């Protein structure tokens, strides 16, 4: 199908032939933009995280004219900065049998066979180049005494392929990416626009040709025109209110694009991370993640007796249930995230939860300190232990940590083809904002990899292919489509400010979060999901009648920013519930109570659900349409995941 038509047939546009040759073949076949012509093309990149920052810098290196926006006051603060654990790459530096195929297979299997083989294989292939690029930029990865790079094993895999920089891998990768971006800013090839929020996509002749953004300092609406728009706006787990995401993480950019015709892939597929610091009170604004690397050495347990209120150190070994080691003897504490999270939920439901709220489990380092010595434990996890102590006020060297699952990552996102293009011609989606590579569950240390793969290696090539393939007559910001998009934004902003009701935005955010967590969270049922849809619709109606947004539109106004984002969470939350309801199987992070084995393990339904669900917006008062992209597995055999 031609690249300038909406891809409503969901053609994945994957190359054919042997899996390992597809990306190389694609690269040699796609069209190129002549060097002298590149600077005549403007590309708008929304987001400066690992995906957006790397794409903006690389496109500028190639010679394109780039406009790059972010919400924060500096690109260096995008939420990628918070990633702790590490980044995977199939380097096999440890000689432990790793390979591109194995990383590919682990990612497909970890994703519970709900992702595209071609995409995932490409991800595994370029993973090695990512590490090369980051080292060349001066990212100070951990090293061995001989000067080579160090690796560790991370969540659910049996090789050591994770590269890391203490507990701040995301920060160091992002600062590397940011430095490359600032070099292009200095060279005049990137126009950097911090403190901007994209609020509308502009389509001209059905193609993405620009955006309208709000200047968050002055409140002014600004128009930007270009030949392609790249969204790299991150995940939307803030729809759950409490999550490990940043306070400003949101879905507004992807949601505006969905409403302009981009299909939304697998919206309900969310990863609930097993090791966050548990919630302490209702006032809380976010949950802090404790890196999953802790499970390499920590042992998860609860008391065997429900309601056991003794202090953890007073509970004898014989009365503790190291339930992950018991149920999954071969993977033990390193089972994938969805399994670890769900098992914690079950223990809490059995009344065995610990801590003041009874909604937590222990993660114990006593054995590790005995085996490795305190110093080694400090070297590996010192900053995490310190972080924990700051929050909870307990010393994890002495008393086991308390942990509990938290919404952490959204596998769902805008549907994209192999070229990372959405169903809207010219609109490309990168990083966590797209649905592409992680299927129903993401393996640890693979989101950083995907963000940088998309931004450094994939999009710079495929966006060029799009530009070279379609006719792009010049469009300026005086085109009527810009004025129309601006009017839509203005109408929304004015409406939000005019209601002046009785409830604050945060109260509404809290309400929707509660529904999402209880009914569209770790364990989902038909009745619960139907109820959630009703409740959310009611909340949304109430929001638009009773919200109170203080301040004005032409000013720095955080309440107004938040109001716009929360308004979108109602609509997105409803779609997430619909998607979860329609997917009548359990897979990865999606667990339907109706679909489980007698032992309580997830029951996948490959006959009916080996596909991507992509939702089409059809108006505020019409139900969205569910389309499917079948997933053909040509190279791997679909297996039931077993970590026993």
């Amino acid at each position, binding site marked *: 199908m031609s690249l300038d038509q909406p891809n409503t047939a969901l053609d994945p546009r994957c190359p054919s032939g042997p899996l390992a040759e597809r990306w190389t073949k694609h690269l040699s076949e796609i069209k190129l933009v002549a060097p002298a012509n590149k600077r005549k093309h403007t590309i708008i990149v929304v987001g400066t995280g690992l995906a957006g920052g790397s794409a903006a*810098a*690389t496109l500028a*290196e190639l010679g394109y004219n780039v406009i790059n926006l972010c919400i*924060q*006051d*500096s*690109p*260096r*603060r995008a939420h990628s*900065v*918070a990633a702790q654990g590490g980044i995977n790459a199939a*380097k096999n530096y440890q000689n432990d049998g790793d390979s591109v195929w194995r990383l590919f297979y682990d990612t497909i299997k970890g994703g519970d066979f709900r992702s595209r083989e071609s995409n995932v294989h490409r991800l595994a292939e370029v993973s090695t*180049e990512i*590490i*090369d*690029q980051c*080292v*060349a*930029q*001066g990212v*100070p990865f951990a*090293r*061995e*005494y*001989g000067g*080579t*790079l160090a690796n560790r094993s991370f969540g659910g895999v049996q090789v050591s392929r994770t590269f890391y920089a*203490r507990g*701040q891998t995301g*920060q*160091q990768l992002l*600062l590397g990416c940011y*430095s*490359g971006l*600032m*070099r292009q800013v*200095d060279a005049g090839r990137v126009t*950097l626009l*911090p403190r901007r929020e994209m609020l509308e996509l502009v389509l001209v002749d059905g193609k993405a040709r620009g955006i309208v953004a709000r200047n968050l300092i002055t409140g002014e609406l600004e128009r930007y025109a270009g030949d392609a728009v790249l969204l790299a706006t991150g995940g939307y787990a803030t729809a759950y209110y409490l999550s490990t995401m*940043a*306070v*400003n993480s949101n879905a507004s950019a992807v949601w505006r694009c969905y409403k302009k015709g981009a299909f939304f892939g697998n919206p309900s597929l969310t990863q609930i991370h097993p090791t966050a610091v548990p919630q302490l*009170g209702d*006032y809380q*604004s976010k949950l*802090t993640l404790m890196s999953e690397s802790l499970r390499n050495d920590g042992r998860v347990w609860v008391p065997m007796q429900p309601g056991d209120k003794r202090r953890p150190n007073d509970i004898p070994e014989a009365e503790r249930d190291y339930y992950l080691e018991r149920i999954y003897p071969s993977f033990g504490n390193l089972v994938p995230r969805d399994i670890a999270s769900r098992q914690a939920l079950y223990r809490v439901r059995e009344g065995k939860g610990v801590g003041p709220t009874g909604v937590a489990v222990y993660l114990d380092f006593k054995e590790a300190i005995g085996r490795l010595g305190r110093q080694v434990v400090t070297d590996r996890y010192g900053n995490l232990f310190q*972080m924990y102590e*700051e*929050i909870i*006020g307990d010393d994890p060297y002495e008393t086991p940590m308390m942990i509990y699952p938290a919404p952490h990552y959204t596998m769902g996102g805008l549907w994209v083809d192999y070229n990372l293009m959405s169903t809207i011609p010219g609109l490309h989606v990168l990083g966590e904002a797209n649905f592409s590579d992680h299927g129903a569950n993401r393996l640890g240390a693979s989101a950083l990899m995907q963000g940088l793969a998309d931004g450094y*290696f994939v999009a710079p090539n495929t966006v060029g292919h799009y530009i070279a393939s379609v006719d792009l007559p010049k469009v300026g910001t005086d085109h009527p489509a810009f004025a129309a998009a601006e009017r839509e934004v203005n109408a929304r902003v004015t409406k939000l400010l005019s209601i002046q009701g009785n409830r*604050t935005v*945060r109260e509404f955010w809290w309400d929707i979060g509660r529904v999402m967590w209880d009914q569209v969270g770790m364990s989902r049922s038909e009745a619960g999901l139907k109820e959630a849809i009703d409740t959310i619709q009611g909340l949304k109606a109430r929001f638009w009648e009773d919200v*109170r947004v*203080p*301040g004005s539109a032409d*000013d*720095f106004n*955080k*309440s107004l920013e938040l109001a716009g984002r929360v308004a979108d969470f109602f609509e997105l939350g409803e779609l997430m519930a619909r998607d979860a309801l329609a997917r009548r199987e359990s897979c990865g992070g999606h667990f339907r109570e109706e679909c489980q084995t007698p032992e309580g393990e997830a029951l996948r339904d490959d006959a009916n659900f080996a596909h991507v669900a992509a939702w089409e917006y059809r108006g505020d008062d019409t139900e969205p349409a569910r389309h499917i992209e079948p997933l053909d597995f040509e190279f791997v055999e679909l297996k039931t995941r077993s970590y026993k």
Partner: protein
Amino acid sequence: MHFTLRIWRQSGPQAAGRLERYEIDDINPDMSILEMLDLLNEQLTRDGVEPVAFDNDCREGICGTCGLVIDGVAHGKKHLATTCELRMRGFVDGTTITIEPWRAQAFSVVKDLVVDRSPFDRIIAAGGYVSANVGSAPDANEILIPKVDADLAMDAAVCIGCAACVAACPNASASLFTAAKIAQFSYLPQGQTERERRVVRMVEQMDAEGFGDCSNHGECEAVCPKGISITNIGVMRREYVRALTGQLR
């Protein structure tokens, strides 16, 4: 817990500012100070008063977005912590807490407690990078880096760019921030090729932005939430002198 808050309110860069008093009750000791400000803003919104503007994002001490001067100290009195990491159990119940924005000639106030830190981005743009285009990198293990050097580089690289160092410095100098980046690259083989140009341009940009000079007060290191050492400033000075005298060549 109950607190009296004195908070800096300023409607815009040109407007005059003043400290306003607010009373707040029912504060849980486990709350962070930003969660307390959230509660205050809920209260103000209900009372029809415009909420206090303050910057924040990750709320876990890594993005560098938050930053308040609390009782006269950047990021408060707690050592090695950002503002968002401060818990109310570290304050005395019933006391008054004064909250102000970062103050420095180079940073203008955007609104209330929010300031413009874009000069930091321009300092990095002036040379805080290694020019390595995508596609041209050798295999990562071809560049061997002794663990001690990698660790030294990492010690400097952990800077979160919050600008507490500037807020704490009597001269409002950005030396610690700039030096940390220069030092990081000076320890790494990748940083050698552009060593001279980097230090000269970054130092010049720092001066052009209107930051003051460093006169070794050490306040920056004392408030740095990541414990970045003032010895980095020594490294920067050495690099700068050597670059000017051609000794790096």
